[in-house]
């Protein structure tokens, strides 16, 4: 990846993080999960997927499914940066005047399917991948999952079915930020060794730093990793990435910051100083 492209990706990701921070007030949003998935989503849309503002309804396109759903602010921000979603619409967050809320829905251009209930979109993406095979299409399906989401049994049903049906056009991306809602994954339902788990289920696995665009480029350069096999990218990420004051903290999952804190967090994002969060409005769900 050349310097120019890298710089451009970093700039886009920075702007997406600004959108996310701005959404985390006046009702709030799942800010931690969104910041961990930001670089993944930005990379997939701008570099990997055959998707742009003019082909969103074309049957001959790639598909991206956001299964964990809490990270939708990162997708809203990315869609704005792609020119798919009008930036002004983000002002309508949590308003009945629009459809911008805490989980993805298909009223937003570019969103293929709603989510929010965990463990559904692995199955839905299996169905789309099956149809692409039946139809003889070369397009691909990417499904982003949370690591906590891997607790759901239906994820593993989809993992087994995808393997059985040799869906090498299907790619799961696990946003491995090490936290689920209230605590570290390894303190509740340990997931490691995660690479071994997927390999045991017949998938080809690549584990990378999910905030490193060079790693991402390498992981997505040559898919499928093996013919007739589904692929999974386990992306090690940091919950709250970009904001040291909330990074990797169990209590910064859903946040509803004050407007003053939002200003401070935006400055923190640009490396100016760390915010001292005193907000009584901090909410954990």
């Amino acid at each position, binding site marked *: 990846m050349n310097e120019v492209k890298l710089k451009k990706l970093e700039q886009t990701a920075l702007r997406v993080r600004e959108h996310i921070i701005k959404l985390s007030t006046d009702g709030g949003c799942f800010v931690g999960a969104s910041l961990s998935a930001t670089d993944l989503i930005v990379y997939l849309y701008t570099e990997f997927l055959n998707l742009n503002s003019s082909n969103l309804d074309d049957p001959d396109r790639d598909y991206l499914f956001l299964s964990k759903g809490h990270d939708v602010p990162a997708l809203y921000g990315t869609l704005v940066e792609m020119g798919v979603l009008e930036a002004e619409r983000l002002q309508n967050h949590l308003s009945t005047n629009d459809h911008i809320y805490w989980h993805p829905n298909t009223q937003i251009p570019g969103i*293929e399917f*709603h989510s929010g209930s965990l463990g559904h979109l692995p*199955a*839905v993406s299996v*169905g789309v991948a*099956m149809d692409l095979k039946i139809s003889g299409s070369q397009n691909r399906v990417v499904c982003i999952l949370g690591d906590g989401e891997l607790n759901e049994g239906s994820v593993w049903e*989809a993992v087994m*079915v995808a393997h059985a049906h040799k869906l090498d056009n299907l790619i799961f991306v696990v946003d491995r930020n090490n936290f689920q809602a209230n605590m570290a994954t390894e303190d509740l339902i340990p997931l490691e060794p995660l690479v071994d788990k997927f390999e045991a289920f017949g998938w080809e696995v690549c584990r990378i730093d999910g905030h490193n665009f060079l790693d991402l480029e390498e992981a997505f350069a040559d898919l499928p990793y093996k013919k007739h096999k589904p692929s999974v990218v386990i992306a090690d990420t940091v919950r709250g990435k970009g904001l040291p004051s909330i990074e990797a903290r169990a209590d910064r999952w859903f946040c509803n910051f004050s407007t003053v804190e939002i200003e401070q967090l935006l400055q923190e994002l640009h490396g100016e100083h760390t915010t001292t969060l005193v907000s009584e409005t901090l909410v954990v769900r």
Partner: protein
Amino acid sequence: MYEELLKNIAIDDERIVVMTAENRALIRNLPPVLGKRFIDTGITEQCMVGAAAGLALRGRIPVLHALASFLSMRAFEFVRTDAGIPNLPIKLSAFIPGFLSDGNGPTHQAVEDVSLMRGIPNMQVFAPANEQDLAIMLPEILASKHPAYIRICHRTTSFQHQKHFEIGKAEVIAEGTDVTLLTYGFMLEQTLIAAEILRAEGKSVGIVNLRSLKPIDEAYLVDLTQKTDLLVTIEDHFVTGGLYSIVAEIFLKKQIQSPVLPIALFEKWFKPARLQEVLEYEGFTGKQIAERILGYHTESIQPHIVASEFAE
């Protein structure tokens, strides 16, 4: 017959994809005919329904096969969330509902499926009475743009149905002024026997096959209260949420007071056994139903009930 019909529809319509969660009893011969359009996901009802949503997003009409209890309950949230919310044309072919699970036991008893499925916005609910009824209904059900739950009863009977089927319309088999028997699915067989006995006792008896449970023929049911003294709802389903509830909701909405006798399962699962014995034990033979309505015993003879064709 079901298999033959589905095969012919699928051959003519490339959009049809036949899916199963390893319940192949009704569709054993379809894999070689449909090739890639036959998808067996293994014992994964949730994944099957989710994958069906993915296929439907791409323009397919998936027809899903599993036991009614697992399709309606194990996969419930997937049906609600992945078929119901986006209003995708996913068709659920649910085998051995109600008493048809005979000897399987309560794990396999889908006796709340109508209640669950009709509670999902956009979902249509159908209950064919037998093989012929199913054949008459299936093309319309598959042509509908909505998701649908089909409470499959494919038993062979000698009864001849009216050939016309319209979604939301009841099949009025007979009209009568003393009592009208409202039923759906497998219980039509026993309802016809009950009607014969009631007629032999001098009653004027109506019989209605409510093969389309959602949407239901509301206008006809309202009209019926002016024409008959007593309505009886007969169903192999819990009394909560099934036909009795549907009728009650309509009458409450229309502020109609009308006597309705529910024949259904009350707050319990049924005794698992051979089908004939289930009906006798639970009081659902035609003779028992007729006698409950009459309030006295008769000398009528209950015909033998043909056993189910398969168990899974």
